[in-house]
């Protein structure tokens, strides 16, 4: 974990309101594991926004770090206006990572909306570990699609769904995943997405392990402020930023 001033290499729109930002950082690129995130100060000396903003690292390529994000408020709005050559301050890598292994069975990866970002490099690693990977991605609508080609490359089967059915299955990623559970012999699932999606996933009562990446509002991002605490199964407090963001779905209340 380091505090780094990095120079933006590229920052481009890749879908409706979705941007992909990249910068060079040998340190981060090497230290990174799928699931990690960074805490970005979008504007120096700004008091509004005041806090850093947490974003998963979508993937790294050589020494370049790529962050996909959706413009939802003032912080991401400002970030989206940054140009090549502008400097941003990045704190990372933060948090734990997805457990990647050679599983003896199929792997399912289920992502919805901005939750899709951290899953790309996960799939990459899962494939590298020679797993068979089924990917389920849910988007709002056809114009919101992103990373589709990239996921094709790192999956065996890719199932796209949209809320409005404008492309792929109509419905969300969990619904599609559900239809496959019985046909396929999944050994493990990984997921990231909005809370309702994760709750739906939990209520499937999967017979195999399922790891999810969570979000909570964060101030420090490193485990010091205790703003991002959630209750673990045993009543113990878990900190999404430092004990997570990846948790065994059975170990957390959602």
């Amino acid at each position, binding site marked *: *974990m*380091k*505090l780094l001033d990095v120079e933006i290499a590229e920052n481009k729109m890749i879908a409706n309101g979705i941007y992909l930002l990249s910068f060079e950082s040998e340190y981060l690129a090497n230290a990174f594991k799928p699931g990690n995130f960074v805490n970005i*100060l979008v504007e120096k000396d700004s*008091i*509004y*926004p*005041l*806090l*850093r903003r947490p974003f998963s690292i979508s993937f790294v390529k050589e020494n370049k770090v790529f962050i996909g994000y959706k413009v939802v408020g003032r912080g991401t709005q400002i970030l989206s206006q940054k140009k090549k050559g502008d400097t941003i301050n990045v*704190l990372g890598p933060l948090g734990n990572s997805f457990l990647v292994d050679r599983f003896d069975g199929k792997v399912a990866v289920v992502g919805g909306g901005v939750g899709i970002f951290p899953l790309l490099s996960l799939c990459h690693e899962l494939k590298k570990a020679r797993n068979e990977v089924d990917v389920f991605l849910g988007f709002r609508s056809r114009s919101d699609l992103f990373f589709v080609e990239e996921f094709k490359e790192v999956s065996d089967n890719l199932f796209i769904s949209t809320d409005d059915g404008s492309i792929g299955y109509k419905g969300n990623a969990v619904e599609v995943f559900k239809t496959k559970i019985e046909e396929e012999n999944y050994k493990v699932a990984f997921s990231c997405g909005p809370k309702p999606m994760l709750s739906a996933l939990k209520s499937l009562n999967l017979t195999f392990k399922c790891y999810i990446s969570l979000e*909570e*509002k*964060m*101030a*420090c*991002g*490193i*485990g*010091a*402020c*205790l*703003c*991002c*605490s*959630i*209750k673990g199964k045993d*009543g113990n*407090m878990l900190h999404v930023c*430092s004990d997570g963001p990846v948790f065994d779905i059975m170990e957390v209340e959602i």
Partner: protein
Amino acid sequence: MLEVEISGVKLKNPIIAASGTFGFGREFSRLIDLNLFGGISTKGITLKKRAGNPQPRLCEVYGGIINSVGLENPGVEAFIKEELPFLRRFDTKIIANINGFNKEEFIELAKILSPFVDMIEVNLSCPNVKEGGMIFGKDPNRVYEITREVKKVSSCPIIVKLTPNVTDITELAKAAEKAGADAISLINTISAMAIDIETRRPLIKMVTGGLSGPAIKPIAVRMVYECFQKVNIPIIGMGGIMNYKDAIEFFLAGATAIQIGTVNFVNPNAVSEIKEGIENYLKDHGFESVKDLVGNIII
């Protein structure tokens, strides 16, 4: 040049990490050198382990944040066993921030902790718990009473942390002084609220929380100034300090030392930047010591 003293405890510089924003130092130690701090005020400690408040605990507002952590902490024993030894490795003063839900708990905490730490900060100002905290802290009589009892049993100097959510903070300051407090610290967060207009729900589960950050600075400076006119014990000032300029304002208003809280989240290097900034300011303005700044506002 930067050394200050609070009731015999020498801080090598006047910058203290504010309680609750710095955990027990462990996390930040991976990022910055804890030796940079004159002191570290720990996360608020209670007798028993506490889970704190439900989510959401945090939201951002214009120039500040509202938090409602609610004193999540491992309890005093775990603190002494698991956290203190780590903190003790650094050349910085350790201030235990204590939180009771009644007078007896404060006394108990002070008894247990005072042999192990450099100072105790009696938090009579936590807005995020239903009992204790700010409820006590708003009443000068309770402030007096608790301070006196804690002082009696403490083997180290005690700081009383005051709430800004009152008509006249100097009444609390005077009560603390009269009861024997070695110093006062102010301000804790200001009770505040924000609403998500889409869900129509409060952005903090507990509805209200404590506002910190730059937005509260001018209120904090005013309160430090007011207290400086009324008490003779040292004042530790805080509230919205983002850089050395803000720190200098607090010294001029009457603070002997300062605490930095929210800024740690934004800029973990703040402590070293502020330290350097104060040094340069002193040199550029011909002061020999930060002590020369204390209350040195020209009216």
